């Protein structure tokens, strides 16, 4: 193997690829070639570093120089200065990376990473996901070798159980227990499945693991197969994730080539192979029984449970199904032991959790924190707070099944049970931050709109109930809310939760219930005062021109797309409220701040 003195790691995750990292890789390779450094410096296209907000990101080792928002114009300077002359281009580093004494901080000292602990994401941004050798160099497939040669299947399950690992898809069921059920189930054939149908809007942890470290998932699935006695696995992945699918295909191919998948793995007589199945855009397929129907090539409708998949799953056979992030922890647990894993986190929630931090936050991106970290630490210490000097209003976790966490709960410990207690849930890891400009009634409407669209239609509480809730919410944001609406929402919510067939329906009312719990005053303002406190709901807004400030320049009347503004030049203008469509164009363009919105 060739040795290089320096490595240029360029993020090849979806976020950075979207902001042009492929072109950067080409330019770096070209520049390094021209400088005659191709035998000394290697360019690596890695998985996600996490700080998507500052993408495209380039990290140069051995110094660990963290370059952010790199453009094609910067490449030549980095090649000439840093790679050729050894002078780090400090101007292009992430803003807090330069210390007062003008030296640079190592990666784990940068604010964004300081409080993080990367277990599931340990290889993301470190290895080239398209080269199995790099995974192996970082202890890859060592856990599989250890299990196959030194451990009985039951011992593997015992270690996973003792670690306290719980499902990272959101519900938090103990992983080892699930494996035990499937191992105990009677069946001539068993399956291992991976849920990579990451449907929660605003969640992209699983995709980043698949893109940055696909072998971690493959190795863990082989371990699960060994533990329960399966010889075939399926990864069900969203078709919307083309880069993840491609890297998985490459990884499976390489693993087969190395004899780590297929027949007689590592000469131990253990057989296991994997296939990929693509989703086709149905949120409900994240539900385990719906997902299995979909792999079988059917409509992705959930099945009643019991029987549980552990007894009757895919093709009617005992099946273990885990989420991508759950699998990403497994090999480390086998290698480092249950105690190591259980030493992180809280009493009932062990280990770490990855969150996709998004919305109104300075550092959008992917963060992995030990369980028990507070929401405040995530938002302010890691996330860098709210942009534009605005006030934090709520953080939404758990997607359409979760809830909104208000300011009063900022010190909540992030673990499964504490989040349920305050009316939200862990979910798969989307965390969307909202500020004072976001209307909580409209957010509830947004999620119900999503659920109504994604309800599979099999059971009436979900199919009809969520639609009735949406209709009420739509009326409220349009200013047509009536007395009794809140109570109707509460009754519907209670009944849907009790009667729906699957997790989608049972949790669909949560966004409404949690916003009612913490932001009831906003609902009341919409219904009784016909006012949107956040100034978001168009039907409840009114634009007016202040006669004192208006100079009569006529700019607004020329910009208004519907001719709602009239007046005499050099005198004052007025807005005809019956014509106004509340687009806000006039207010944006007025040079005298004479137009206001109420």
């Amino acid at each position, binding site marked *: 193997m060739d040795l290089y003195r320096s490595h240029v790691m360029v993020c090849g995750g979806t976020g950075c690829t*979207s902001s042009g990292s492929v072109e950067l890789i080409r330019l770096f390779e070209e520049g390094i070639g021209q400088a005659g450094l191709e035998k000394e410096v290697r360019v690596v296209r890695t998985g996600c570093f996490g700080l998507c907000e500052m993408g495209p990101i380039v990290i140069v080792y051995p110094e660990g120089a963290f370059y952010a928002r790199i453009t094609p114009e910067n490449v030549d300077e980095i090649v000439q200065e840093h790679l050729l002359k050894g002078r780090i281009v400090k101007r292009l580093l992430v803003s807090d990376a330069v210390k007062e004494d003008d030296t640079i901080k190592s990666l784990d000292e940068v604010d964004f990473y300081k409080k993080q602990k990367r277990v599931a994401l340990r290889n993301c941004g470190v290895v080239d996901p398209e080269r199995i050798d790099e995974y192996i160099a970082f202890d890859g497939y060592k856990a599989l070798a250890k299990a196959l040669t030194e451990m009985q299947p039951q011992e593997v399950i015992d270690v996973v159980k003792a670690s306290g690992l719980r499902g990272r898809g959101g519900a938090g069921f103990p992983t080892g227990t699930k494996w035990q059920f499937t191992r105990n189930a009677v069946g001539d054939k068993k399956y291992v499945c991976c849920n990579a149908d990451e449907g*929660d*809007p*605003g969640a992209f942890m699983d995709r980043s693991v698949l893109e940055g470290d696909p072998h971690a998932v493959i190795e863990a699935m082989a371990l699960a197969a060994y533990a329960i006695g399966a010889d075939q696995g399926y990864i069900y992945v969203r078709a919307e994730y083309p880069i993840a699918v491609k890297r998985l295909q490459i990884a499976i191919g390489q693993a087969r080539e190395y004899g780590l998948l297929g027949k007689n793995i590592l000469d131990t007589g253990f057989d296991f192979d994997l296939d990929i*199945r693509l989703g086709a855009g149905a949120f409900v397929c994240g539900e385990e029984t719906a997902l299995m129907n979909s792999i079988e*090539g059917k409509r992705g409708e959930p099945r009643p449970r019991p029987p549980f998949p552990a007894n009757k799953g895919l093709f009617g056979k005992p099946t273990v199904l885990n989420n991508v992030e759950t699998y990403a922890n497994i090999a480390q647990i086998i290698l480092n032991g249950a105690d190591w894993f259980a030493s992180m986190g809280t009493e009932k929630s062990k280990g770490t959790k990855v969150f996709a931090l998004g919305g109104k936050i300075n550092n959008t991106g992917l963060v992995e924190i030990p369980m028990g970290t507070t929401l405040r630490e995530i938002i302010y210490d890691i996330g860098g707070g709210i942009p534009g000097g605005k006030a934090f209003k709520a953080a939404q976790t758990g997607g359409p099944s979760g809830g909104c966490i208000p300011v009063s709960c900022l010190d909540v410990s992030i673990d499964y049970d504490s989040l349920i207690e305050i009316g939200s849930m862990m979910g798969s890891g989307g965390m969307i931050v909202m500020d004072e400009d976001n209307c909580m009634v409209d957010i509830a409407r947004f999620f119900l709109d999503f659920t109504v669209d994604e309800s599979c239609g099999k059971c009436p509480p979900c199919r009809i109930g969520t639609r009735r809730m949406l209709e009420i919410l739509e009326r409220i944001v349009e200013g047509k809310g009536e007395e009794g609406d809140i109570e109707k929402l509460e009754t519907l919510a209670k009944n849907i939760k009790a009667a729906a067939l699957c997790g989608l329906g049972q949790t669909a009312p949560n966004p409404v219930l949690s916003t009612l719990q913490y932001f009831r005053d906003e609902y009341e303002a919409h219904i009784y005062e016909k006012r949107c406190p956040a100034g978001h709901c168009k039907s409840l807004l009114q634009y007016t021109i202040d006669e004192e400030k208006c100079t009569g320049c006529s700019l607004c009347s020329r910009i208004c797309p519907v001719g709602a503004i009239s007046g005499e030049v050099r005198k004052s203008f007025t807005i005809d409220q019956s014509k106004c469509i509340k687009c806000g164009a006039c207010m944006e363009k007025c040079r005298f701040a004479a137009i206001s919105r109420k």
Partner: protein
Amino acid sequence: MSIDRNGKGKAKFDQLQAFIEEMRLEPGALMPVMQKAQEIFGYLPEEVQRFVAEGLGVTLSEVYGVATFYSQFVLEEQGEHVIGVCMGTACYVKGSQAILDRLAGELKVEVGKTTPDGKFTLNATRCLGCCGLAPVMMIGDEVFGRLTPDDIPGIVAKFR
């Protein structure tokens, strides 16, 4: 585009037939076959659904049931450029509705429909997972991030 399995579309049907042969014995082959069919034809007209049903020995109603269940399968021909505006939560709280409204106005087309000249199809999509670039849209395979409504006319002009 012709969808006559013996006429101009024959080469495409032959390609699909070859894939069906390859997949026939796989358990759960229907979805991969339909995904391939959509890749080949761009959409799934009745004739193609019928062909898949016959090829795999399942009923047409089963094929139609799957085709209408999943949002990825489309039954109508798509525009030359398919625009998808992300309506994931992160994009929504950062104003993607205004982006979608502006596009609908600029292209004079309803969301979910194709322009009369067949140039553009405008869709509201699920989370594209580039939340760091919110609000985001895709035109074909190209991603446009950190958008404001005023960026729209310039971007659309490049594809006209």
